[in-house]
């Protein structure tokens, strides 16, 4: 009885905080991306398509960094911990922290890409 009840709960306990973390970052990224786009067009006098492409590229930078950082942390995390312990001065790098932050950075970039990409799509279509 206990086990059956916990399967759903366990999935939820696993997925929900992660979804919240990434989803929040995506939302923030989308807003910031859109704001940057608006600023470029309104204040900078850029063309919508050019501005969207630029903002999108910045978004991919964050997305790529986040993705790379996330998987890199998972892959080489122990190595970094060891290296810092033996060759550096003081640090408190941990793999888990790094992955969480990278999920944020990546989500942020993804959000920005999504928002600016859609805007450009619409602008080109019109």
């Amino acid at each position, binding site marked *: 009885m206990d086990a059956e009840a916990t399967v759903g709960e366990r999935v939820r306990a696993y997925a929900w905080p992660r979804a919240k973390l990434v989803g929040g970052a995506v939302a923030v990224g989308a807003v910031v991306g859109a704001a940057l786009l608006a600023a470029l067009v309104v204040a900078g006098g850029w063309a919508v398509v050019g501005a*969207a*492409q*630029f903002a*999108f*590229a*910045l978004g*991919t*930078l964050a*997305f*790529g*960094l*986040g*993705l*790379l*950082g*996330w*998987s*890199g942390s*998972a*892959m*080489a995390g*122990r*190595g*970094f911990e*060891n*290296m810092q*312990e*033996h*060759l550096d001065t003081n640090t408190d790098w941990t793999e888990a922290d790094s992955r969480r932050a990278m999920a944020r950075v990546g989500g942020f970039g993804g959000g920005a*890409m999504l928002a*600016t*990409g*859609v805007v*450009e*799509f619409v602008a*080109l279509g019109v």
Partner: protein
Amino acid sequence: MVSKRFIAKRLLLLVPVLFGVSTFVFAILHLSGGDPARIIAGQRASEEVVRQVRQDLGLNDPILVQYGRFLVDVVQFDFGNSYQVSKGNPVRQVLIARLPVTIELALYGQFIGLALGLPLGILSAIKQDSLLDHTTRIGALAGISVPIYWSGPLLILFFSGYLGIFPAAGRIGSTIFLDNSWTLLGMELPLTGMVTIDTLLLGRPVAWLSAVSHLFLPAITIGVYSMALVSRMMRSSMLEVIRQDYMRTARAKGQGAKITVMKHGFRNAMIPVITVVGIQFGTLLGGAVLTETVFGIGGIGTLIVSAINATDYPVVQGAVLTFALLFTLVNLGVDITYSYLDPRIQQ
């Protein structure tokens, strides 16, 4: 000993790593401000031609579409054709031809680094504060202070120019030609592209000697640099193990126990060193760029340099991704070794 599931999980990490690197590369290309269409068409091409090229390349499509297409191409390891460095040839072909060269150099360099660095680090730790320890530490410090682009030329000038015992550049004697394939039990098989292996497969000892003597100086150059880090790391790790309680007890118990524990201590001290070797492989690849340039070896390193110089973006992309792939695979190997040494980690 190492579970298949663990390996599969690690292999799966390749996907986000390469996805991340290619997204990163995409961003770099789009932020760099160069116009690929202009580069392909050439500086003197008319505006008309450039516009046509841009259309053909799909640079007028929505950026989301460009990004999607880019990812699909990357998955197929298809970066299009080189603009400049190997004009008109598919980047994939250029990469495949050059990859073994860099792998060969990096492997021998890493091997020399480990073969020299591990014993030095251990001796330095066991005989702490002895003359040997001080010499090793200063040597390691000097090793990271001497840039590859100085130690390489010095080795060439001394061993090749002055003594004349090693060739100065290239991978194999210029009069030696290797076949394109070798046969095993009547089957025709492709060669590896690594000359020190291919010459053996083809059963040509003279050519093998030539290949080894060509590789010797570059591998030493890159290996000494790697040795410096390995020995520092090994010393620090070994010292930590030696200072632990069970080691002290063993030392008190006498010589026989000491040797047993030294073996055990070595195994424990190796764990952090192995993981660092994986990360340091990235620096080694950076070193390969310099070493290849000094010794005139046509690997991925020299390719990346000439591609950046010629703003040959497809080649830059392909080369960067290849480096990332290499780095990831090496770290996968490191992980497996690590989990062999310390089985708890497979959880």
